């Protein structure tokens, strides 16, 4: 079966000759390959600057790869119109990025509206999704983002990413900005959600405990390369020094 996401030899090199002093021509991501099937969550783990976020942005083409190949449900991402590609991929970022002038309902219904769903279908979908992420639809549909807590905002962010039922979800440290208690709460709920919605996910974090809790696979990034790829159990037992450094921090 075609995996929801297949990445082969992905690379991203900054423009330039390499002669300057500012890292021109440097590879931010180099020769990264993996695939993620429905119901699987690949956690990309790594230190700051290891290329995790860059890898994510190369998948939905917020950055254009300089080498390699990304396929979403078998189709080459580079061949699709970029807006169509992105509407098939849910995207959740640490800062959430809700539109402050839209109600929760309009925020969650954004992609369905771009795809010209009927208003009745959008309204029903929004209520379904808010319930899924643990927010009471009657209480929240009319609220604005500034009336929500950080945790509630990120729940809305996840609902928004799921709105058009994309087969693939990219999450960039979605719980990184939350207080520790809310973070653990959302991690637990997210672990339960993963099983229910059966999406393919790529989840970027530098928190190894979060990664082990949420990932079906762990990809460890080091200086732009995938230094380790395996199951959480493989990761725990690995004698790769970078894996051990992360396990020591857990």
């Amino acid at each position: 079966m075609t995996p929801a996401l297949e990445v082969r030899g992905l690379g991203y090199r900054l423009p330039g000759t390499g002669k300057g002093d500012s890292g021109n021509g440097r590879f931010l991501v180099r020769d990264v390959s993996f695939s993620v099937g429905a119901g699987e969550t690949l956690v990309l783990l790594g230190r700051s600057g290891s290329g995790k976020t860059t890898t994510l942005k190369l998948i939905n083409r917020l950055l254009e790869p300089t080498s390699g190949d990304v396929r979403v449900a078998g189709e080459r991402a580079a061949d699709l119109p970029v807006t169509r590609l992105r509407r098939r991929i849910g995207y959740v970022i640490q800062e959430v990025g809700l539109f402050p002038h839209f109600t929760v309902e309009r925020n969650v219904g954004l992609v369905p509206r771009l795809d010209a769903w009927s208003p009745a279908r959008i309204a029903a979908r929004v209520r379904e999704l808010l319930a899924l992420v643990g927010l009471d639809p009657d209480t929240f549909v009319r609220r604005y983002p500034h009336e929500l807590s950080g945790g509630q905002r990120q729940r809305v962010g996840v609902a928004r990413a799921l709105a058009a039922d994309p087969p693939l979800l990219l999450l960039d440290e979605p719980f990184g900005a939350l207080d520790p208690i809310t973070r653990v709460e959302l991690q637990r709920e997210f672990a339960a959600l993963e099983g229910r919605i059966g999406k393919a996910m790529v989840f970027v974090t530098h928190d190894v405990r979060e990664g082990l809790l949420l990932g079906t696979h762990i990809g460890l990034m080091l200086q732009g390369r995938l230094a380790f790829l395996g199951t959480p159990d493989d990761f725990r037992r690995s004698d790769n020094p970078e894996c051990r450094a992360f396990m020591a921090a857990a």
Partner: protein
Amino acid sequence: MSLLSFYARNSQEVLGLVGQHVYLVAISTGAAIVIGVPLGVLLTRRPGWRGPVLGVANVFQTVPSLALFGFLIPLPFIGGIGARTAIVALVLYALLPIVRNTYEGIAGVDPAVREAGRGMGMTDWQLLAQVELPLGFGVILAGVRVATVVSVGTATIAAAIGAGGLGVYIFRGVAVVDDTLILAGALPAALMALAADGLLGVAERRFAWRAK
């Protein structure tokens, strides 16, 4: 002769000049919005043009208004004596605050909001129309407010090149050293500026979206 009896005796002329004044300000500010907002948007898409464009707009702002009116008179098509020349000069003055605030208003949108919009598959036009312009609207309106208030004042000088407006009384009053006459032009102009400032200020606060 008191101001009130002056107005009573010359009500037709006063209304005519007020009308001309409003016309000068409305047409020039309107044209400056039509030119300045797209120009400001363009600067957010072509950051390299920002310095040169704002620089040129800045230069117009520094030319004394009476001199600018004078410079424009000999020019073909846009020059000559009358309202058309005055409107060109007023547009040049109004451009800077409108272009600058459009740029600032859009550049000030939370980068995370922009990234989320792009990441979800909005086109550049959708992002502009649904996110950047609505969120920047308060700041853009602040630029329009500054432009309008400045225009009301500058338009009084347009009378010097035969464009009419309330400046007619002010220049006439200065020439014959008649305070009442100067006041007859200055007072309605000041009230007009205050009214524009107040109304646009209310609108601006209505559209000032909080980032968080």
